[in-house]
């Protein structure tokens, strides 16, 4: 990622604003300590559950479609 901070300030007041914003750049917020570990743990169980959820979702969709097919003629009668 190209770093191009502070450019294109046209006026003294804009340059002063960029000085102030530079202080935020120098003191960035940090992600919590175990951030990556926590995400990977969640990704792991989501990845493991995904095939089952896909099957369950497919089954649910099939049930809905079947109900629709079975009930639709009665509605039209």
């Amino acid at each position, binding site marked *: *990622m190209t770093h191009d*901070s502070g450019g*294109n300030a046209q006026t003294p007041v804009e340059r002063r604003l*960029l000085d102030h914003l530079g202080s935020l750049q120098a003191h960035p917020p940090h*992600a919590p300590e175990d951030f990556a570990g926590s*995400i990977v743990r969640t990704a792991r169980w989501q990845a493991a559950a995904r095939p089952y959820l896909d099957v369950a979702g497919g089954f649910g969709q099939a049930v809905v479609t079947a109900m629709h097919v079975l009930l639709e003629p009665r509605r039209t009668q």
Partner: protein
Amino acid sequence: MCRELARVGNGSPMDPDRELVDRTVAGDLTAFETLVERHRDVVYRVAARTVGPAEAEDVSQDVFLRAFHRLRGFRGDAPFRAWLLRITHNVALNQAARRRPEPVEAPDLVAEARDAERERTPADTLEGHERRQRLEAKLRLLATPHRTVLVLRDIEGLTYEEIAAVTETPLGSVKGRLHRARGEMIDLLRRNTYDWELPE
């Protein structure tokens, strides 16, 4: 826009994250962990400054998990980092749109009351930490599209082209938003009783 996104990055023809992405897609979660470690700071910073520190962790987690599940769709015609920042931008905007407006004025009034008291003491007693907190609070008063452009340009240091790609906005609009965002920020600081030492 795809061409613009493809330019986002370090200019290298090879994306340094490509191998890790391929390994993650193949099921190697240690590769994904390396990707998270490599990019967590920029994602967290952008999230924190777009939606505020209280929601930054949730937004950042959402970003990485979305990226994880969509990784098969990552074609690699743009660097992974740019692709990730685009997801960050979209998740943060959705989050900002969903929540109720923050009661930002109330704490500011308290801060301004403290300012009046501090006028009796030397200005340099105001610690940098409090100054930055106040600046962050002012930043959150900007409209989200303006705040995003200001954060990406003036704090994160992205180029106009990079911002255009990440925010999926025409280059001219990015420049216009940045100009307006800086103007609004200057107005906000001038309305504060604390002296930000802004020249006329």
